[in-house]
């Protein structure tokens, strides 16, 4: 049975939403954001990119299919807090091994249910993502003004570096599946299990590196390519990783990045990044591939974006040659991918590994592999670029 214990969601602008305690009891603070996917709550919760965020699911029923070990995108739940309308009372799925409630409680995730999630979503859409807190148990009894003060004291997402919190403490390797193509050094800024699996399935030995790794250590691995993962936080606060990327690119090591890895490539190339009003978090986001004119339905989870010219080819302000924006959001024209024309580097803002979400963009992993193969074979630059931009497919 669903709890009847009270809980409250408090936003930094003073809005309060009364509901029922869900998951662990206590208090939690974070940036309130909404995610619109109708499937894949387990993947969402275990996606390290959500670290520091109180995630609201717009889908009303959450938890119906329970949880299992296969669908985890990392070892634990990362969200700072969880807001749902109707948590499931039971689990129905042949793969389920436990309930979502179990995971939330054991993970110490404070949540709230029974609130008007649509009203909160509309509020965040109009005013933008903001700091928030969930209070239940003893913390529910704090006064309204105490709770609000606690929320307002919390650290804002802008300017925040969370990479240390989510990255692996130790380097580890996943062996290539099938015929080996090469090795890829993955900078773990909050990488998802699916990403690592798909890279390995493309024939790469995947060397996962802690975020503290140095240029020398990366170069010493002699990887076929470097990969920057998705992850939480403000790209502006990750100057060290930007510099690392610049150094590695200067060593002519090819690069592929996803999400945070796209923002950091943008910064490495000399472009700015900025915070979106309420971000893109869903699995129905249409993205235009500017080269092919094709639309792909993508999985997205980002609150920041790259500020680069959307049309034409421009020179990298940081001196990495010509660059172009390769993908755009069809909803709001935000940059969703960039590609270099004079060095072997490209990245996308969305999630080709999906999980949760559609598999429309899985081809990017193939492109990455084909790029590495072409470089190994010593193919000319033009050939390599026609692989990256999809003209070859």
């Amino acid at each position, binding site marked *: *049975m669903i709890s009847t214990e009270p809980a409250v969601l408090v936003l930094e602008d003073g809005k309060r*939403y009364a509901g029922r305690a869900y998951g662990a009891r206590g208090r939690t603070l974070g940036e309130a954001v*909404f995610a*619109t*996917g*109708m*499937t*894949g709550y*387990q*993947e969402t919760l275990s996606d390290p990119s959500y670290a520091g965020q109180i995630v609201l699911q*717009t*889908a*009303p*029923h959450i938890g*119906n*299919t329970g949880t*299992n070990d*296969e*669908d985890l995108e990392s070892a634990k739940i990362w969200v700072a807090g969880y807001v749902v*309308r*109707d948590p*499931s*009372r*039971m689990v*129905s*799925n*042949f*793969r389920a091994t436990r309930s979502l409630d179990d995971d939330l409680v054991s993970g110490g995730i404070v949540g709230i249910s029974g*609130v*008007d*999630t*649509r*009203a909160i*979503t*509309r509020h965040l*859409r109009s005013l933008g993502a903001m700091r928030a807190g969930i209070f239940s148990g003893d913390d529910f009894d704090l006064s309204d003004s105490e709770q609000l003060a606690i929320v307002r004291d919390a650290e804002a997402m802008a300017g925040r570096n969370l990479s240390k919190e989510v990255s692996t403490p130790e380097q580890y390797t996943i062996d290539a599946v099938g015929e080996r193509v090469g090795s890829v050094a993955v900078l773990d800024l909050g990488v998802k299990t699916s990403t690592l699996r798909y890279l390995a399935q493309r024939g790469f030995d995947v060397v996962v590196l802690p975020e503290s790794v140095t240029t020398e250590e990366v170069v010493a691995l002699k990887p076929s390519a470097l990969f920057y993962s998705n992850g939480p936080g403000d790209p502006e606060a990750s100057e060290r990783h930007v510099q690392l990327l610049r150094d590695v690119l200067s060593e002519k090591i090819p690069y592929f990045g996803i999400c945070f890895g796209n923002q950091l490539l943008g910064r490495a190339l000399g472009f700015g990044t900025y915070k979106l009003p309420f971000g893109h978090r*869903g*699995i*129905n*986001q*249409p993205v*235009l591939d500017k080269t092919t*004119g*094709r*639309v792909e*339905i993508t999985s997205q989870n980002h609150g920041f974006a790259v500020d680069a010219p959307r049309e034409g080819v421009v020179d990298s302000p940081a001196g990495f040659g010509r660059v172009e924006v390769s993908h755009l959001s*069809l*909803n*709001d024209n935000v940059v969703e991918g960039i590609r270099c024309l004079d060095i072997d580097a490209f990245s996308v803002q969305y999630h080709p590994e*999906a*999980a*949760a*979400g*559609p*598999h429309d963009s899985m081809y990017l992993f193939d492109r990455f592999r084909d790029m590495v193969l072409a470089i190994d074979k010593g193919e000319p630059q033009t050939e390599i670029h026609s692989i990256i931009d999809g003209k070859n497919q």
Partner: protein
Amino acid sequence: MPRREDIKSVLVIGSGPIVIGQACEFDYSGTQACRVLREEGVRVILVNSNPATIMTDPDFADATYVEPITWQVIETIIAKEKPDAILPTLGGQTALNAAIDLHKHGILEKYDVELIGASFEAINKGEDRQIFKQLVLDAGADVARSHIAHTVEEAVEFALDLGYPLVVRPSFTMGGLGSGFAYTEAELRRIVGDGLHQSPTTEVLLEESILGWKEYELELMRDTADNTVVVCSIENVDPVGVHTGDSITVAPALTLTDREYQNMRNIGIDIIRAVGVDTGGCNIQFAIDPANGRVIVIEMNPRVSRSSALASKATGFPIAKIAAKLAIGYHLDEIPNDITKVTPASFEPTLDYVVVKVPRFAFEKFPAADTTLTTTMKSVGEAMAIGRNYTQALQKALRSLEKRGSSFHWEPLDASKDELLALASVPTDGRIVTVQQALRAGATAEEAFEATKIDPWFIDQIVLINEVAEAIASSENADTNMFLLAKEHGFSDAQIAALRGFGEKEVREVRHILGVRPVFKTVDTCAGEFPALTPYHYSSYDLETEVEPSDRRKVVILGSGPNRIGQGVEFDYSCVHASFALSDAGFETIMINCNPETVSTDYDTSDRLYFEPLTLEDVLEVIHAESQSGELVGVVVQLGGQTALGLAKGLKAAGVPILGTTPEAIDLAEERGLFSKILDDANLLAPKNGTASDFTGAVTIAEDIGYPVLVRPSYVLGGRGMEIVYDSPSLEDYFSRMDGQGIIDPAHPLLVDRFLDDAIEIDVDALYDGHELYVGGIMEHIEEAGIHSGDSSCTLPPVTLGREVIDRVRIATLSIAEGIGVRGLLNVQFAIGQGILYVLEANPRASRTVPFVAKALGIPLAKAASRIMVGSTIAELRAEGMLPVVDGSIVPMDSPIAVKEAVLPFKRFRTKDGLIVDSLLGPEMRSTGEVMGIDRDFPRAFAKSQEAAYGGLPTSGTVFVSVSDRDKRAIVLPVLRLLELGFDILATAGTAEVLNRNGITARIVRKFSEGASSDEDEPTVVDLINRNEVDIVVNTPSGSSARADGYEIRAAAVAADKPLFTTIAQLGAAVASFEATREGFDVSSLQEYAIARAARL
């Protein structure tokens, strides 16, 4: 790619009459398509034989052909109109089959017309079972093991491999017609035999059984750039084994992990690619083994379907509209999302609510029919509801059915747990309530799952509803918390009242005092991510409402709810027209309805749409919300059939202004005593009659009036419970059947009328504004009185009524309109027998024939009525040009004749023993839809109506005749004419004797009850029909002794798909039309008829 410049005109093929499996969802999709194409500057030519549709309104196309949908007729239209392309994917299986025929007969090539929406190759790949199976396997997906059979013997052979039970699916049929589960060889033989007959290619697919698996559907769209989106996932609550049209379904899918869902999505995209649908949508059905997740693709439809209409309403993504744009060349990313306006259509809607669809059945109309649900669709309509969670949506959907017993209830249990579980193990209408009762009776969730294979999550939701009911019943006070809990889970005031032992009104009053009222949320395709510009709302007991204030004067229009026999698309037509007319007149129009198949629930139709149950509670809450946001002028109740009309009193009592005819005046027409007074005052006669609320009373009255009598409950539509009763035992039998249905009680007594034998029935639709009567049309029934007007064919103008009769009818109609105090529409049914005009009934509301009148004579009755309701006079509407100067009572001599014919669903229904249900017409309506034939004279018009309804009459062959004694005299002339036309005549002994004495050579054939002769040299008529040796069957019912014989004959005729005439009047009309049929048909568009009409004035 922008729109193709080479397509300047498009022929859109509609879906024809409403039948089970193909209902008004195709009026919705076709209307959207026509609208889009015209907006794009394309000349639209439309063919659809169904006059009740909105798409056949002459405003929606440049040339509208209400003509039979056959390749021959379409060729004539193509030759005349020379379209650049044909769009066949929005008119259901009918349109798709017509397109295949056009292709096969070389018509497309001959006239150089292109199929758009789907190519012939794509249609073939999707519909041909064997090709499709290979294609699914190539896509790396799985199918059920199967074999194709072309004969019954082949099928029996294959069954040895597949094992029983197995599924039989005929190729190229819709709504699962002819398909079913065979548990034994005997069943297999019967189902395959039928299926081979139903399949235009004489083939059936036999499949391994996947009974009890979870069933899902995806709605996909793809453009020529290969951009593909999944618009919606739909989960069937009833597992595999029940046709999706008969299942309770929910959107989005609620019991899939992302992995399972994405796997299904990938398969779907691979299939739509492989089939090659690249300018439109398709629907793919999947089965998932709950034990291990194995996915099987069941089938795909390379066209817009019933599910896509549901998906459009469920998501706000207008599939048909987008499909029409793709068909003329656009890509998905070039089309804006209708609701947000700023984001593109190349995305996948996400829902922050739950949608539940429940089917509505009409088994009560076919008492002999087996009510078990199978893979052959049997429901006649559906209701959809939107809630913020499943329990809310489910309970709203169930009460939207407007059917006693369809909602969960907590009355004392009337069966044991085991009995209820046994009952629930067979899928039938209302099984979900049985499950709920079983759980109440102590069944565990596991037991309920074992009995039904309904996913445990859905079972648990019913457990939850029972727990909430318990909490409501045991709550100390009816306080805010109790109400909020109840409303969160969709309990109606009526349910709360029953649980707490109060009246519904009191519950509502308390709730309102406590301030517990719903808010209204918006269907926006994007879960709130972007602002929605289209006010498409649903209620929920939540925090924030999204109803925007408005400074316009508002009119609320109540729709007609789920389609059912007797209340279908005709009423939606009237509601939609009212919305258009009132919008043109400057009002803000607000539609309330719960039927996802309709045009009225298209968010483009009215200024605001509320997708809500049509119960007093739900309607009052919408009205309250709208009253808070601006000035409400009133509510239109007379266009939405009995559903809307039934709410009038309650609304008025709650202080809501009712537009047009007042509830008190409505009572005058419905209440027998009051109505008699009106007739007396006007010197009009009704058949001798009385009312009774119990059997004893009824017998007294019947004996006083004299048998036969016509009995019917008051306040029903479609002749529900209406029967002709010949003696008092039959009357007793009638009461025993009506008992417990809550239809007859002192407040709603039974009406008992003398039954008029051999009278001609006349239907009149008219407008009255308090000063003037405007007759829309006077329709003459072809069948004699006693056949429900909805099942009877009729002609407009009348073809056998003299001017004097028409004048009497007109004057009588005026007196009745005045007497009742009609403001708006009035329908009166008369009968004329031996020169005496009787008034059978008067209904101060839109009738089923309003759209027919509009198509036949060009008189927009529904639009005019809605204007009269808000104060315009007929004189003003005439001056404005909305109404023609001359009304429809006198139609000029050279006007065309329009014939309406009913379409009956007997083929769909079987008895428990697998026999066809009886197909006799009677006073209770059983038709699902209608067609119109229009031409220069009656024989041609009638011939067209038969062609459109039944695929045409044979012009040569063998006619079997067997009639009752009272018809023996009347049969001679028509049969003589048949002989002259070259038909062979077969008759049973009695009928043959009469014919032979009249010089008509008729071969005698044995009755079914006589059995075949021992050497089988002399088969019975049923044998002959089964052997395909009879082309037309004429059988009129006689006394009860011969009833069984008649039944066997009619059942065989229906099963063999042979034209069947059960009245002499029908036969007479048919005989006249044979010659017209032989000549082939000319075609004229409604627009051409309008020009000719204008020229005559």
